[in-house]
């Protein structure tokens, strides 16, 4: 792999086995067990995906719900193993599939900062030197000795984000971080993205926010039904995404039209 490539994906396939759990009684369970009749449905989530991401590139991945984006991210992060094909990663990769993974509600904010820091590979001493900045950035000075379960969800996200941006890494994988938080949080996210671009970090961003895609990404990948439909300019990709969303019957929800009749609520 040449030196200026950060991520190289070659012919990756991934499928999941979904067991049919329709065992109604112990008797039938036993019979099925002896007949070896546990039925599986093989769901192919990703089919023959290949692409390259250059070092310092801001790369977007776009697709509708269930198109296989998150599976692809988890494969890149090494959380899943591909059925076939290869994934080469050049450098240190840190995934943020979700903000605040590993947060423990029973621990105080302070304790959670250190635990989360350790998950990013920071020792206690390194975290000591970052602690003040993290708390200040999250604007949670008064709350650090309270248990995390007493935090509002917005406070939790702020704390998690404040830790996450300290990650010292070459390649970042971000899954829908923009989907949470208010406008000021989004602004902080945008500032962070700009900062990443300035530092020439490689970033893989998954989002439904097409404005973020066109604003930050150099290139983007559009996936539909587990296949890569298009790789290239962000403009093409966001057009394809929007078209796919508004031209299919299930997409009524996005246009504000209820597809199913509302359930009637019975009041006693």
């Amino acid at each position, binding site marked *: 792999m040449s030196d200026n490539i950060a991520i190289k994906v070659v012919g990756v396939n991934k499928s999941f086995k979904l067991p049919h759990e329709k065992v109604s009684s112990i008797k039938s369970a036993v019979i099925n067990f002896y007949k070896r009749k546990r039925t599986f449905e093989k769901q192919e989530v990703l089919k023959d995906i290949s692409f390259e991401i250059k070092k310092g590139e801001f790369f977007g991945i776009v697709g509708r719900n269930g198109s296989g984006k998150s599976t692809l991210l988890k494969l890149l992060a090494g*959380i899943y193993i591909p059925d076939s094909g290869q994934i080469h990663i050049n450098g240190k990769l840190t*995934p943020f*599939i979700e903000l605040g*993974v*590993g947060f423990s509600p029973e621990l105080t904010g302070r304790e959670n900062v250190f*635990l989360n*820091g*350790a*998950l990013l590979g920071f*020792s206690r001493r390194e975290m000591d030197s970052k602690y003040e900045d993290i708390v200040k950035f999250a604007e949670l000075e008064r709350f650090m000795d309270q248990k995390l379960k007493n935090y509002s969800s917005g406070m939790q996200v702020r704390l998690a984000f404040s830790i996450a941006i300290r990650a010292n890494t070459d390649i970042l994988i971000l899954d829908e971080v923009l989907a949470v938080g208010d406008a000021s949080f989004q602004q902080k996210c945008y500032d962070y993205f700009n900062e990443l671009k300035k530092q020439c970090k490689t970033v893989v961003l998954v989002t439904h926010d097409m404005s973020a895609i066109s604003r930050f990404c150099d290139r983007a990948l559009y996936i539909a039904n587990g296949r890569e439909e298009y790789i290239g300019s962000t403009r093409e990709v966001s057009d394809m995404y929007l078209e796919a969303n508004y031209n299919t019957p299930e997409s009524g929800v996005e246009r504000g039209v209820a597809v199913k009749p509302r359930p009637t609520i019975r009041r006693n």
Partner: protein
Amino acid sequence: MIRYISKENKALISELVRTDFKLRYQGSVLGYAWSLLRPLLLFVILYIVFVKFLKLGASIPHYPVYLLLGIVIWNFFLEMTTQSLGSIVGRGDLVRKIRIPRWIIIFSSSLSAVINLMLNMVVIIIFMILNHVDLLVTTLWLPVILLEVYLFALGLSLFLSAIFVKFRDVGYIWEVILQAGFYLTPILYPLTLISNVTFQKIILLNPMAQAIQDARWSSITHETLIPHTVFQGGWYMYIPFAIVIASLAGGLLYFRKESKYFAENI
């Protein structure tokens, strides 16, 4: 090897053990004292019933300490395996969303069991002093025996935690096995109570029985049966050690094979 003890992994292990400690007795008044109180209370009950009422172990000097040591070692084994068993599933959020080496989860939960064991050993030393147990030179063997128990439990923990991801039945099965193991291991009765030598031999094939008897012999009294005397030096006295090695190797291999698919199977 360097890869495994990298700075990142060390930081992570120490933080996970710390979290484990903080969370374990969360909200209890006595807090960490419970990890000493639990085996001690169990000891008091067993002591009253089996030593005072049923007069077990009258032939063995320092029987209370002898009993306590057996309980503490068994409890260590029980705690480590049961905690590890659910640890991969319990830390499912980490497994599914972050790439951390999976073995770190088992290793850190095993370390908190080891720290507990160390605290309990302090209690045993206090009991030994109160009971005027003479310090034996063979006590030097005790750390080696405890290491054997640790490795045995580690192998089983790796295996159990990995298979628990696929079959949750394992949790209940293991509970029953532990219950049976507690009675099939000479913890609360002296081995001499079983008069049939063949049964004695069968019981001592279990690594836990062998380790507990050896630990008592090495640090409390030489007047107890150990595998070496029961087996009279036959080749099968090595079977318990073979079981330990097999459990460790099997556990490691199975865990390594399965750990790739933890994220999708949980």
